[in-house]
């Protein structure tokens, strides 16, 4: 595809190092590193060589028109795409400098270090309590006091504790849509992952529930590196510090969110965020 520059020349943003200006301790700047990463569904190449460095303890949003490969890249971070038959990849993704595709890396262990929240909330048909304890149980943690502590901590983090503390042992399916999604977030952070992946986590929620989840995301970035896929431009600008714009399987632009939304370097980015296509 063409990587036509903006008529008014602005220095290529992906080339210069990111300067993040706020109070948070910077953390590693290349915590997740995507290195010339290509991904194939059968013969179809969905990602055409992505290069991306994600710093830790930030919120990064992936934006771009439908089908551009946002979910595909996101689902590679925890190797969920491997569940689909006939897929393969080229290039590499490293976390903390270790390739996630290294034969010594166990996919189970990888997924425990990376929480994932899906577009449609997917609580298990068990109690609220058991939903959150699930990742602990499969990790072999059977201690009741650890369970109790984790349930309270994660529900508090997910801003759900006050709403459900009196019915922890009721079925999770009795919650409202927004509560279910926050429960799924609580469950995703129960095994204390370092990274939280969210694929359009608010697209099935009403504005109030969305606002709650957004507040939650901003709160959670103190402890997690959060990558969020969203179609909602306001959401991207509200919650994320960095934004990556994808188009047709390419990373077009990656920069500070503020810059992407006020002064993008690429014409395609500008056209997309101003709603001229996508």
């Amino acid at each position, binding site marked *: 595809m063409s990587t036509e520059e903006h008529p008014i020349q602005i220095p290529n943003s992906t080339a210069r190092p990111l300067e993040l200006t706020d109070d948070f301790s910077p953390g590693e700047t290349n915590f997740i590193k995507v290195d010339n990463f290509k991904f194939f569904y059968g013969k179809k190449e969905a990602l055409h060589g992505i290069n991306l460095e994600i710093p830790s303890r930030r919120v990064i949003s992936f934006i771009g028109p439908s089908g551009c490969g946002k979910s595909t890249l996101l689902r590679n971070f925890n190797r969920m795409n491997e569940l689909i038959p006939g897929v393969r990849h080229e290039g590499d993704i490293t976390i903390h400098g270790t390739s996630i595709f290294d034969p010594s890396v166990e996919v189970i262990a990888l*997924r425990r270090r990376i929480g994932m929240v*899906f577009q449609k909330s997917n609580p298990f048909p068990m109690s609220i309590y058991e939903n959150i304890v699930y990742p602990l149980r499969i990790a072999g943690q059977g201690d009741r006091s650890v369970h109790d502590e984790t349930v309270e901590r994660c529900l508090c983090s997910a801003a759900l504790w006050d709403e459900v503390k009196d019915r922890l042992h009721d079925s999770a399916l009795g919650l409202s849509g927004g509560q279910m999604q926050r429960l799924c977030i609580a469950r995703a952070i129960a095994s204390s992952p370092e990274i939280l992946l969210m694929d359009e986590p608010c697209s099935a929620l009403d504005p109030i529930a969305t606002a709650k989840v957004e507040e939650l995301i901003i709160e959670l970035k103190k402890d997690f590196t959060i990558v969020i896929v969203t179609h909602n431009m306001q959401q991207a600008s509200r919650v994320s510090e960095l934004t990556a714009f994808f188009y047709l399987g390419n990373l077009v632009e990656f920069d500070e969110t503020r810059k992407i939304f006020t002064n993008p370097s690429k014409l395609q980015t500008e056209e997309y965020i101003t709603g001229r296509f996508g």
Partner: protein
Amino acid sequence: MGGHFSNTGALSTLTQEYRRRPDFFRGACLFACILTVLLLVFIFGEILLKAWPAIHKFGFGFITGTQWSPNREVFGVLPVLIGTIASSFLALLVALPLGLAIALFLSEDFLPDPLRQVIRFVVELLAAIPSVVYGLWGIFVVIPLVQQYGTILSAHFGFLPLLAGPAYGNSLLTASLVLALMVLPTITAISRSSLVVVPYSLREGSYALGATRWETILRVILPTAAPGIVASAILAFGRAMGETMAVAMLIGNSQRLSWSLLSPSNTLSALLANQFAEADGIQISALMYAALLLVALTLVVNLAGEMVLRQTQRATAGLR
């Protein structure tokens, strides 16, 4: 009704015509429905009527009595009731794990799809084999096996009441094993359909939390499908209780109370099939009383199964 079109000529006649035609079919369907319900009421009433002399004469003692001797006009059906429930329960004990394992293999992608379809077809074919053929197969295959291995078992473990000898070929165990095979398709089909409707998002959610495939199956998929699996077991239990021909050929038709799985026993349906032809007088009435018990028992079991099944469908509908 029809007020809108009363003065629009052609349209009006057309509408009326449309109304009249479905009315005929509707009537026919309604008639068939009512007929079915009436038939059920009629059958139940007829059995009750014929059983009445025995109900009047033996009362509740019929159910608790352990002797069945038509010559002395003593009729107690307890051993047969126990045999009915025990044989169905044993059949379930064998068929449920087996059927569930098959259902899992058919719903998960352990095997390539064409192979899964073949297995599914073969299991469903089991349901098409006539009862009497199962009975013959039991006589020629299962009876010799039970006799052979039962003798060995009772020689070593005969001190256990359940395995006390001698090992007759015609026994509770034989009937239960064949019954297990007969109810296998019921369990497999219903369990499988409740397993395949478990939403993919739940599997995905479990994998994303670092669960292995078996952890996902055991902790998420099976519990989600549990009500459907329970329903399949209940319905299979009901089917096993009503099963007649094969059981009558294999169970040994003995009304003696025994703990041993290797001893002959009897079930309500086998009792009816075996004795009705030669029965007269109060024995007919006693058999009708037994039939009434059987109908009541299967009705309760089937109703319970249907209820659980319906609840499952509602619960999983909420998941999607």
